[in-house]
């Protein structure tokens, strides 16, 4: 039969928690049992991106995708695929449009519309083996730089590519490197920001877990261009698997001579260390991150001086995030012109998005900049769960905004989204349907910003708390007429006067929801109603006498015994609103749809 077939099992954090790890062992045992160990091998890979359908596995070279695989399915898959040459149809993905199973990854819409540059190796190689990385052109970028390019030429190439920082602000990477390079100093540092704190984003975790060498190579190239000889990867402690894989990769790169002194005989030195963050969202901000590495409270400071002039321990320092670094090897290997063909005029290349929330296909997707939100949500994401109606997409985390349906044809790039009142941010896309309350979402984000505010500057420390209090009141039906004006005034003041990005962008969720969903705020304040039926305090439950069969199921299950009625005396069931805690148990238990929520 076919030579060298491989089974790629996704062993990223998502699939591992769906039970992927025991499957790898069972696969290995079963291959031995069926005598196939010479032709079939099993590889535990990083994230394949399709978290919703995990655990997933891919049969190579045919590129067959199996979804929601369990240990019990393993024997059947091996026998069908490798002995009979047939598919196990029930484990294939069913296309929602045609209702037919699709086997080849190229035919699956989730994958077909993606263009994977940064995720090129994720889900394809064993991230714990350097030889699998080098076999797919790994470390060729740094070899090319060291053997035939001056640091200036490397920097020019990155500038020409048009790459912009993937961490949020979108500052041109080559330009940033240039500032640090120009500052004269005996010592310079580079840092990889892997403190991915935005709730709803997990691309940096996946890249570190699934392709750690690409980050190391990107940093090597950057260090060479900038003239740095020491680097740190600042990674969240919440990502144990990423830290483990990166640690293995650093050790292997040292052994292979890619890290250390006199790299590849070029006289260039570079040492790389991991620093485990201790849990503070604000440490995603450059100056706070550096304070944290220095062993201090992670609080931002006023800029200038910028890190490129005075950074870690007072030395010139350049910081980029995981995804930015991971783009660099591809630019060096294939050239700036090749890279420039992807994306829009001002936002080049691809962007990874974490697609989550009320969408059918959750997971990690990489698309060229300029792809529309509609394509991402409805083609790749396959639309809204449970046939519900789309309401909004939250983009850019706590610093971003919510966009409504009529903005779905916006092309995703840095400038378009900023104009619309959102931002690319780190790339979290949380999809919301008609049951999500937009005031509650704004309240949710302000609660987050308020907790994570470091407390150094007053506008952010006090302002986020005041805004949260107002929003909390509104969701409880205690909103006042003047609240919306107060919120807007506060939001603008805080945006203009906060010290760092956390405070400057904390009001964004409010400003965006006020802009696009003002009617929901007004319904809460004026009518004491939550249009999404989400805010508990504004709900009222009642029983429709016409539909009620007096089965007493609601009354029996009510935790506060606030429903009374009697079939024998033909007394209709009613809810005592005074005692009702609005838990919704009655609505779930009623078999006749007689309980209504308004």
């Amino acid at each position, binding site marked *: 039969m076919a030579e060298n077939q491989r089974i790629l099992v996704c062993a990223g954090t998502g699939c591992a*928690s769906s039970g992927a790890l025991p499957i790898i062992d069972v696969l290995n045992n079963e291959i031995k049992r069926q005598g196939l160990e010479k032709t079939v091998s099993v590889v535990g890979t990083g994230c394949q991106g399709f*978290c919703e359908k*995990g655990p997933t596995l891919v049969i190579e070279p045919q590129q067959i995708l199996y979804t929601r695989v369990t240990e019990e399915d393993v024997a059947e898959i091996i026998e069908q695929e490798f002995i009979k040459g047939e598919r196990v149809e029930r484990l294939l993905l069913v296309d929602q449009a045609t209702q037919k199973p699709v086997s080849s990854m190229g035919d699956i819409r989730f994958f077909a519309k993606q263009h994977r540059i940064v995720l090129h190796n994720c889900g394809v190689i064993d991230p714990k083996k350097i030889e699998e990385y080098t076999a797919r052109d790994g470390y060729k970028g740094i070899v090319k730089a060291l053997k035939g390019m001056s640091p200036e030429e490397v920097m020019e190439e990155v500038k020409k590519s048009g790459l912009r920082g993937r961490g949020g602000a979108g500052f041109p990477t080559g330009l940033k490197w240039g500032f640090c390079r120009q500052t004269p100093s005996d010592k310079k540092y580079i840092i990889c920001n892997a403190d991915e704190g935005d709730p*709803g984003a997990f691309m940096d975790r996946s890249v570190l877990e699934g392709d750690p060498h690409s980050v190391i190579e990107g940093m090597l190239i950057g260090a060479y261009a900038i003239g740095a000889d020491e680097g740190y990867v600042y990674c969240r402690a919440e990502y144990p698997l990423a830290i483990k894989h990166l640690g293995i990769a650093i050790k292997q790169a040292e052994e292979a001579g890619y890290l250390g002194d006199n790299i590849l005989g070029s006289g260039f030195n570079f040492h790389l260390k991991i*620093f485990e963050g201790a849990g503070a969202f604000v440490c995603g901000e450059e100056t706070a991150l550096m304070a944290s590495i220095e062993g201090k409270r992670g609080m931002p400071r006023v800029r200038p001086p910028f890190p490129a002039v005075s950074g870690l321990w007072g030395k010139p320092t350049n910081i980029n995030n995981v995804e930015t670094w991971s783009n660099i090897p591809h630019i060096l290997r294939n050239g700036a012109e090749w890279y420039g063909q992807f994306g829009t005029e001002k936002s080049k290349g691809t962007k990874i998005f974490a697609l989550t929330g009320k969408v059918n296909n959750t997971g990690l997707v990489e698309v060229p900049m300029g792809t529309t939100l509609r394509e991402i949500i409805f083609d790749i994401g396959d639309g809204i769960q449970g046939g519900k109606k789309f309401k909004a997409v939250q983009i850019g985390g706590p610093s971003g905004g919510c966009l409504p349906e009529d903005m779905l044809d916006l092309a995703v790039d840095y400038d378009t989204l900023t104009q619309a009142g959102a931002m690319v941010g780190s790339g979290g896309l949380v999809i919301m349907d008609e049951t999500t309350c937009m005031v509650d979402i704004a309240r*949710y984000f302000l609660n987050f910003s308020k907790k994570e505010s470091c407390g150094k500057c007053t506008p952010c420390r006090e302002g986020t708390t005041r805004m949260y209090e107002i929003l909390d009141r509104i969701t409880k039906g205690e909103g006042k007429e003047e609240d919306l004006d107060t919120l807007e005034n506060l939001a603008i003041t805080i945006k203009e006067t906060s010290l760092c990005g956390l405070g400057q962008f904390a009001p964004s969720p409010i400003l965006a929801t006020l802009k696009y969903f003002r009617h929901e705020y007004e319904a809460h304040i004026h009518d004491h109603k939550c249009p999404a039926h989400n805010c508990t305090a504004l709900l009222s439950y009642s029983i429709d006498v016409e539909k009620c069969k007096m089965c007493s199921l609601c009354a029996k299950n009510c935790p506060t015994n606030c429903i009374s009625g009697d079939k024998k005396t033909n007394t209709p069931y009613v809810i005592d609103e005074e005692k009702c805690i609005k838990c919704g148990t009655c609505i779930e238990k009623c078999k006749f749809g007689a309980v209504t929520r308004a």
Partner: protein
Amino acid sequence: MSTACEELVDPKQIKLDEIIDKHKHSNGPLIPILQGAQEVYGYLPAHVIKHISKATRIPVARIYGVVTFYAQFRLTPVGRNLINICLGTACHVRGGAKVVEAIEKELKITDGATTEDGRFTLEVVACIGACGLAPVISINNEVHGRLSPDKIAGILAKYE
């Protein structure tokens, strides 16, 4: 005599000193030392902070400032099993609050508290990066995804 002496030496203290020695001379040693100490003791008792202060010559006040700044560090002991309930955006939108309610009801404790028998400590966190499986919780770093309130009792029963 020698056995009696050995018994007096606290094995945790030996480990702590090893950790301090390993990091003491590097740049910015405090956070790695505190992380190591917390791994040994489960939390950061006052006497450990004082000991670190003496060994590194960093004032207790500064150490306390760092400890209280970062979410990872704790000044009180944790239970045998640490539950992190994710309330990131994706989990929030997909009903994470109901999962929190179910766990709080099951264990009769609220965010930040430990059960009386020391079996569980509960912590609500902002995101554990498994958003594709929302809502999720992690117990001792083991992630459980696609949760609903009715699955909680079964999952908790697996942890002693």
